[in-house]
């Protein structure tokens, strides 16, 4: 478990290379995250299908597939992964629609503030980690409960 904590994977999607470069540089300077950046949402999606990821950040307006559809598919594959949209589009109405439809973790407007972005990412990752831990504990409890049930049966068998 400590091993997974060390290795945080973040997927970034934007059709503009300059955004990807800028974000990668920032993250490599300020964090130890393993950054996977894609200009194609489809490629990003196939990566997410194959690999466990901790957080996904996507642009809104992209020629191949818009950010909302992309994040909706990410949710299908990995519902526990927090999803963030980054948009330069000035249409709040659509953004709110997206948040409700896809269940976004956060909505960031371009141009963004690096400090804010880092905090949001950290919070997202933390949330994912906590949810995973919670899931793990629930699994442990369930397993323990199963063991308990078996023991209970064994005891009954012994006495009856």
């Amino acid at each position, binding site marked *: 478990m400590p091993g997974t904590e060390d290795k945080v994977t973040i997927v970034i999607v934007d059709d503009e290379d*300059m955004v990807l470069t800028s974000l990668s540089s920032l993250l490599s300077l300020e964090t130890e995250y393993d950054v996977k950046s894609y200009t194609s949402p489809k490629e990003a999606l196939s990566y997410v299908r194959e690999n466990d990821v901790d957080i996904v950040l996507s642009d809104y307006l992209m020629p191949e597939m818009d950010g909302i559809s992309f994040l909706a598919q990410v949710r299908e594959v990995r519902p526990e992964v927090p999803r963030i949209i980054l948009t*330069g589009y000035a249409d709040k109405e659509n953004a709110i629609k997206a948040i409700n439809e896809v269940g976004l973790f956060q909505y960031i407007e371009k141009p963004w503030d690096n400090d804010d972005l880092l905090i949001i990412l950290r919070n997202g990752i933390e949330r994912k980690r906590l949810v995973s831990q919670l899931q793990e504990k629930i699994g442990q409890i369930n397993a323990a409960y199963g063991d308990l049930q078996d023991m209970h049966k064994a005891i009954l068998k012994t006495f009856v």
Partner: protein
Amino acid sequence: MTRPSEDEIQRLRASEEKYRLMVQRANDAIFAIDPESAAILEVNPKAEEMTGFSAAELAKMKVWDLHPEDERELAAELFELVSTAGSGTRTLHFLTKKGATLAVDVSSSFIKSGTRTFIQRNCHDVTDRTRLEVEHMAQRDYYEFIFNMMPVGVGVRKNINNKPFIEFENRRLKEMFHGEDGEHHDESHAEWHRGGEAPPLPTKAILSEDGVYSEERTYPDGRVFQYTLNYYRNTDDSWSELQVVRDITHRKELENQLREAMEGLERKVEERTLELRRKQTQLVQSEKMAALGHLVAGVAHEINTPLGALKSNNDLLVRSMARLRSVIEESELSEVVKQDTRLTKVLDGIDSSTGVNQTAMERIVKLVRSLKKFARLDEAEQDEVDIREGLESTLLLVHHELKDRIEVHREYGDIPRIYCYPNQINQIFMNVIVNASQAIQGKGDIFIKTSTRDDNVVVEFRDTGKGISPENLERVFDPGFTTKGVGIGTGLGLSIVYQIIQDHHGDIELESSVGKGTTVRIILPISQGGKDARDRG
């Protein structure tokens, strides 16, 4: 008494014979009547012929026996008159032996011949004349009937340049001046026909135009008569006037109604045209706003992406520099770097550059944000807003029009938020501020003041521009009116402003004096009107 000479006797005899022959051959019936008894003494052959009685039969009759029962009194009177006064005339009838009547002019005179006295009665047959008279009367009635059937007034005035009198009026003319019954002709009614004024004399000037004089006359009771007067000179040199008078009151009324209807129509067309033009402006305006919205959204996105990268990278550079400095600080290089001025210059240069970058980018960020706010893409619906924010974002957008040249003085008073379409209100501010800046040649000032008045918010824009002339002031809200010339003004600015204010149930006040400047006051209701505007939309 001397005896008459032979000659004289001879002459008298001849005279008597001549007289007797005249009587015998006369074409009139001649009777000699006894002045005492009225008995018929002698008759000529014509008398026998006309009465149908023989001389012997007539000799037994009194003079009045010649006439029908109802004329005997008159005949007796004539006899009395002649007996006393010496002569007299009457128009009477003979009752012939066959019982027919015969019209005769009777002329009687008392004759004294020597010792003999008698009454000579000449009776002239006037049957033909009477027949002509009757025919004449019938013809007169016939024409009168025709004239009376005419729907126009026809009359004849005689002797118009001396003592005028009415010779003839048809029924219509009487009705026109004397009411339905047609009775009463007063003395002045000739003048009445002409509205109480003396009639024009048939001067050469009048007669030169085919002898016809025309005029229309309006009476105090509202009736309008059209006169057509014809003049002709009688044989005695007096003048007569033939009047044809038409009552054109109804026609005049119709004409007036028609004219009013036409004017009303023209006015309506004008109003509708203006209304249509306003509607069109409004349409153009909303199309423009929609287009602007799309444009701004697209541009904002296109700018924000590279701007995001730039901003992030600059921040990265700042962070990297901080990291670099702390790395140097912690290493043994610290002192070396401090000594090397070239190196410190490079590092300081990078720091100051990133600082400038930061400021420059903040400005771009603010501008894009203002553009978004101005278009209010996320607030195309009505909202409660503080319009001072709208003023600020508008001022930022028109900054390039004003900078250096015009100083903006903000005198913002406390105002409540108002319910409105924020993007439309911003459009108003934009148009008014741009107008003010274009009115200012060279340097000047714009004073923007916000305040409240009753249940309204008032935004006042005062400029020190060239002002608007009074005749142009009336037209500034007309769509298409511009004084700025092609390429500068669309002529739609204030018309759009007016439309938006109307939609918000607000008002606009304009004061201007040439050479001093213009004040535009925009009055917007705080709540109610705005909500209505939404219902209408």
